[in-house]
Each structure stands twice: as structure tokens, then as C-alpha cells.
């Protein structure tokens, strides 16, 4: 069976419109305001912004791991308490135009929510989600996916991959789920000409050259952990302002907080995004905080991305999208911090920004 097709713009649009018509929630980058693109459900394919480069302000992770979601709701009538589960998702969802870094981020989320103790809320969304990645034809200044093992044409976490060519699109099926999503439409598409794979690889090489990142080495994980107690963290994290913009725009950050909210008659247990840079994140009920200052807190962020992992895991949790760098109000650059922390742990001098 054919797994790579050559599509014209009209064919791609009509396939996407078909998905909408068949009742799937099609979620794509949509321009909200001048200069602000976010993932949102589209009603027609022309709303989707599918450009060779550029990314949404934050990752599409909220469609699998919402900012806030009720885990259960309850009502109380005298002594009678009735607990109800939140409704099951009713529709399949298709994430279209997901950058390779974001798709890789979803694979990291899968690892957090599905690999050990399975999170049922995440799972039931994940089971109904298909990811259509969109390869990058250009890099943004903050991009560094190649430094952390990613690629501008990477397929990690994707079911289908779209590649913008000079004339039209290349569509590759990468999983059974992806193949299923194509349905009957694929029968009318022309198969890709030989050499298409090489064209994609060439795009990948060109964009990687644009980024010009030197790799973050796997053995740095150990060095970072060895430098856990070094006093330099205070200095490295000096300009961190302790918001959580970095964590909330991050494709792989998965921390959350739990809260009850309700009245005398009922309420709900809500899980909401949280971030390790907040002082409140680790403050105990006693008032003691094991991560006492911003240095400790930012260290957690860096080490969770680049150091803490199981022995059988190869990948960093950071996927190199660089969003945390571009949104940081304190001008922090995580890649620079990693290099500096490693340099300090090695007893050497400061590393370079890239």
C-alpha cells in the first residue's frame, strides 16, 4: 500500500474539509490577532495557518492535557452525595500542522501520562487523537531542536507528516492510525515520485544548518546532577522572575495542581496546570519549602528537562522548540543555562549561548 503521496493545495484543503464534515474536531494553528497564532478548532480548512515556518505561541498540548479539567463533580443533598465522572470525549480530534518539536512533545507527554500509571483522562483523549505533523522549512531564532536530538523534519509523535514542497505538499503516513484517517481520499491522490524522501532529508539538513546548534550531550545529564549543589544556580537563575510562562508554553511540561472548588451544594475536583518555578509549587503545609529560592526552583526546571530520566530513556524531555526563551519576561535562555551549568560542573568557564 502507498504511504507517501503528492498533493496539491486544493487536495489537502478538501481532505481537511472532509474531516471537519465527517464530525472530527480538526484543530490547527489559527491566527487570533496580528502576530498571535494559537491552535484552535477550525470550521473550514482556510482558517488553518499552514506555513513553512513559524509556530503557535504555545504548544497544542492543551488539547490532550487541558489547562484545567474536572476529574469528578459532586452534588450534596443533605447526607446524600452524588459523584459523577466528567463526560467522555464525544468526537475524534485531529491535530493538524503540529511542528515536529510539538509532536515530539506529545510523545513526552505520553511518557508522563501513559507509560507507568495510566492517567485515564489523558488516555481517553489520546486514543481519539491523530497527529498530523508539519515539517519545518525554516527556523526561528529561538529554535534548537537539533541540539536535543530532534529534527526539523522529525516524525516522533506523529501519525502523518506534511511537508511543504516548492509546488504542493508531500503527505506521509507513519502509523495505522494515520493511514486510517486518510480514508478514501487517498485513492485519488498521486503517489510521490521517487526521490521524495531525499528531498525531505535535504530540507531537514538545510534548516538544521540554519539553526547551527551544537548538541546537548547525553552525558551532560550526569554532570548536571553532579552540579546539583553548586552555588552557581542562584547566579544562573538570577533573572528568572518566577512566573510559569516557560512551563505553560512548553510542549512537554506536564505538572499540575489539584483543587476542590465548590459550594455547600456541590463542586468539583479540578486539575490545573502548575509550574515548578512558582514558590507555591513545593511549599509544604507547614510553611517549609524544600526549594527555597529561585535558584533551586529553576534548577528543578533545567534538571527535569535535561537530567532526571529513567536509565532506559534516551531522550531529553526538552524538545528544543525554544518557546520558553522567546516568552521569558526575564530573558532566560535554557540552553545557555544548561551549557553554563555543565561548564561550571566541569569546573570550566562559561559555555556559549548556542
Amino acid at each position, binding site marked *: 500500500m502507498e504511504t507517501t503521496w503528492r498533493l496539491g493545495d486544493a487536495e489537502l484543503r478538501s481532505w481537511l474539509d472532509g474531516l471537519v464534515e465527517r464530525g472530527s*474536531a480538526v484543530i490547527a494553528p489559527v491566527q487570533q490577532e496580528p502576530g498571535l497564532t494559537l491552535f484552535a478548532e477550525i470550521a473550514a480548512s482556510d482558517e488553518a495557518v499552514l506555513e513553512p515556518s513559524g509556530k503557535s505561541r504555545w504548544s497544542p498540548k492543551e*488539547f490532550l492535557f487541558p489547562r484545567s479539567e474536572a476529574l469528578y463533580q459532586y452534588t450534596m443533598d443533605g447526607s446524600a452525595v452524588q459523584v459523577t465522572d466528567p463526560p467522555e470525549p464525544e468526537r475524534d480530534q485531529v491535530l493538524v500542522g503540529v511542528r515536529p518539536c510539538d509532536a515530539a512533545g506529545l510523545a513526552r507527554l505520553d511518557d508522563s501520562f501513559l507509560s507507568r500509571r495510566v492517567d485515564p483522562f489523558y488516555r481517553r483523549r489520546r486514543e481519539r487523537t491523530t497527529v498530523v505533523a508539519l515539517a519545518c522549512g525554516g527556523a526561528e531564532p529561538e529554535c534548537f531542536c537539533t541540539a536535543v536530538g530532534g529534527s526539523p523534519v522529525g516524525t516522533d509523535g506523529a501519525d502523518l507528516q506534511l511537508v511543504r514542497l516548492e509546488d504542493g505538499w508531500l503527505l506521509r503516513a507513519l502509523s495505522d492510525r494515520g493511514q486510517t484517517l486518510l480514508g478514501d481520499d487517498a485513492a485519488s491522490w498521486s503517489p510521490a515520485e521517487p526521490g521524495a524522501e531525499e528531498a525531505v532529508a535535504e530540507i531537514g539538513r538545510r534548516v538544521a544548518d540554519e539553526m547551527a546548534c551544537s548538541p546537548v550531550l547525553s552525558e551532560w545529564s550526569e554532570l548536571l546532577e553532579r552540579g546539583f549543589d553548586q552555588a552557581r544556580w542562584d547566579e544562573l537563575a538570577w533573572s528568572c*522572575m518566577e512566573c510559569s510562562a516557560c512551563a*505553560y508554553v512548553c510542549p512537554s511540561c506536564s505538572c499540575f495542581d489539584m483543587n476542590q472548588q465548590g459550594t455547600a451544594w456541590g463542586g468539583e475536583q479540578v486539575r*490545573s496546570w502548575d509550574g515548578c518555578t512558582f514558590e507555591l509549587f513545593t511549599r509544604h503545609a507547614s510553611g517549609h519549602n524544600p526549594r527555597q529560592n529561585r535558584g533551586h526552583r529553576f534548577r528543578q526546571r533545567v534538571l527535569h528537562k535535561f537530567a532526571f530520566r529513567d536509565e532506559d530513556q534516551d531522550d531529553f524531555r526538552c524538545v528544543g522548540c525554544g518557546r520558553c526563551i522567546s516568552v521569558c*519576561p526575564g*530573558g532566560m535562555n535554557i540552553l545557555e543555562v544548561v551549557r553554563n551549568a555543565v561548564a561550571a560542573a566541569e569546573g570550566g568557564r562559561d559555555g556559549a549561548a548556542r
Partner: protein
Amino acid sequence: MTESANSEPVRAPTQPMTVPDGWQPHIVALVCNWCSYAGADMAGTTRIEYPATVRLVRFPCTGRMNPLAILKAFEHGADGVLVSGCHPGDCHYVQGNLVARRRFTLFRSLMDFIGLDLRRLHFAWVSASEGHKWARVVREVSESVHAVGPLPDWDDQPDAEPIRLSELDPDPVSEPSATTSEVLDRIRVTAANLLKSGEVELFIGYRAGLRPGILAPTMVTSSDQVGSLEFGEGAVHNLAAYLADAGDREGRVGMVAKRCDVAAVEGLIREGQIRREDVRLVGVPCGGVVENGEIPAKCATCSGEPDPVCDVVITAPGARGADAVADSEDPRDRQVAFLESLPAADRWRYWQTQFRRCLRCYACRASCPLCYCSSCISEQHRPQWIPTAIDEKGNTAWNVIRALHLAGRCTGCDQCSTACPADIRLDLLNRKMALEVESQFGGGLSPGERAALTEFRMDDAEDFIL
């Protein structure tokens, strides 16, 4: 309640809200214990009839009334809110109601600006002996709320064209004036001298950022590091945000200060967060900063000349100068006026579209030099005034209270809106509050003067109070 990202979008009725037959509004009345609560009691004992639409919540004083309590009532579905307390001069605590009156004035104007129909929000002075007045007030408030109808669902997303202010976006200054290398040289020399002489222990400035033209905050502690300091149109950060922490240090702190940064430093001094003698300000000429390729609105009216209150003033070319901006107006004033000309429902839609995007990352709070509370109201859990859920209600409560806590204190550096990853027009909310403070109470930001919300006058305007 929470909205999961993949739930069906709620479609709002396209026709105007109609009041169902026989519908009676739910009105929460927040009343002061000493006057209005007793006044309501008086109405009851004298057998005066009035609509049974209000639920009373007793407070010690209107001065204790937190705007978040009013928001909480709306969050829980109240169709209207009435706040009532002692007449000016009658406060059991002497001045609680006078402080409250200012707070209500600004809160009411902010709620109006974000699109709450003001027919839902009322204030009254009712004394303990005014049973008749209480009945009349409740009748009037009930009729007013009845005329607006039930409170629409917060997550209603009407299918209407988005409201865009971009047409009103001016281009205040076509080009920033170039910063000369002379300015940078002198910043470095000054920093080196301050550090070498022991005058400061730490110097806060800018360093090269991710790409040319972008700068990031940095600190240097010895004179041989000053070569890393940079300056230019990418100096968007207000470094004063780092000063409140610096107050914990033993030595003095030096800082590169643009004109807008100096205003924030003065705010910190005025509010007792830092002492003037603990900072050494190096005033620099600024030709306007550049964010995302544009000069922000705040620069339109700024001369960019170094502020003379600085300890070291770098006089060099680079600032646009007072003459160049003499006739300029803040371009946001037109945007505020435009929003105010729209029906309340449209304003509500405009702001809810933005608040819905809010991630509650608190970058606005973190980057604000004057948001220095060691424990923010959003972190208070007993009671939980601001819902932690990242949804319409919680986001609205947060954005309203942030603007209100900065009202009369905000120095207009726009760090909050620059920092906001969701591009919420926080600068417009701040600007609206600044205009309101100016027109209602005047001034308030000079050294030695108290902020508008910590002050009151007996004759403050109260034409909205029943």
C-alpha cells in the same frame, strides 16, 4: 466550571437576551453590619414590603468589602450585586466607607470597561434608621437588574466578528533614535567605577540576548565584567522589577534606568519597598524601545531624556527630546474611547476573548516592578477568592484584581503586557485605570503623595451611589 479543551463550544443565542416570564433576579447584597444590615432589619420590623430578591451578606464595614467578594457573587450566578453601608461621616470605623467609596468608583469603572452591564452593580448608603430607604433601594435595584435579565453564561461565545483595535493602532514614532556607542561606553565606565569604588555591590543592566537587537537583564558584580553590558532599543525590560529583591542584600545596588524605569523605582521608594539611599540610578537617554519590531505606545509621549533624579546622568545624544513629543498623545486613549463607545455586551466579548486566552502563568505579576507582595491574593486559599481553575471566571477575577491593585500605582511601563504570552491588552486596562484615577482623584504619583486608593476626601464624587 471548567471547560475541557475538546468539549463542544457553547453557542450563544444570537437574538438579544429576553427576560423569561415570571423571572425574578437573584441579587446578592453585601451590607455593612452597623448601618445597612440594621436598616434592612428596620424595614422588616416596620413591615415595609419590598421584593424578595436580595440575599444579604453581612460585613463589618464597606471598607472591608473586597471587590473579589462582588466578583465571587457574579461567579456563583448572581444576576446583580448591591453594596450598601453607612453614609459618609457615619462610619463606625470613622473612615472605612470613604476608602470604600474610592475603591467602588474604580472597580465600577473597570467593570464597566470590561463590559459588565452597570445595571447589575449598585452601591447605596442606607443608615440603620432608613428602613424606607432600604426598601426603596431594593425596589430600584430589582427593577434595574430585572430590566437586564438573567446573567448570561460566562462561557457563552457569541458568533460575531471579533472586535479589532488594530485599525486604531498608530505608528507613534517611525524609527527609534539610534543609541550612540557613547551611551554604552559611559554605562560601562560608570558601572565599573561604581563597583570598583565599592559604591555598589551589584550592578543591574542589559546584556546581549538571543539575537541582535534583543537584550536580556543581567547583573555584574565586578568591574571586569562590565564589558558584557549592552544597551539599545532592545532594552525593553524594566530592571526595577529586580530591585525589591535587591533590598534584601547588604550593599547598594546600581541600575541602568530609562525614564520609565525611574518612575517604577520611585514607586518602590514611595511604597517603602526600597530606600533611595540603597540604589544608585544611572539615567540613560532612550530613543524608544522596540518590541516585536514596533515601538510600543508608552514611548509615544516620552522624551526619553534621562531623569534628573538619577545619581549619575548620562547626557549624550539618543533621546528624542521633550520638543519632539510635546504634541503627542498616548495612542491608547483613542482605543479606550473607542471601546467605551461600544455597547457593554461588545466590550464583554472583546475582553472575554482575551481573558479566555490567559494561561495564568502570572508573567504579568512577575514582571511588574510594583507587584511585590510576598504572597499574592491569587495564592490565598482560605478563602479562595480567585478560582485556581484556568477558565473564564478565574481568569476574569485575576485580570480584574490585577488591574485594580495597580490602579493609582501603575507607572505605565507596560512590562505586564509585554510579558503576557497571550497578548492580553493589560496596558489598555492599566491606561483606563490611570485615566479614571486622574479624572476622579487627580495625580497621586508624585514622591511623597499617597496612592489614590489609600487616600480619600470627604467630597469625593459619588453620583453613582443610591
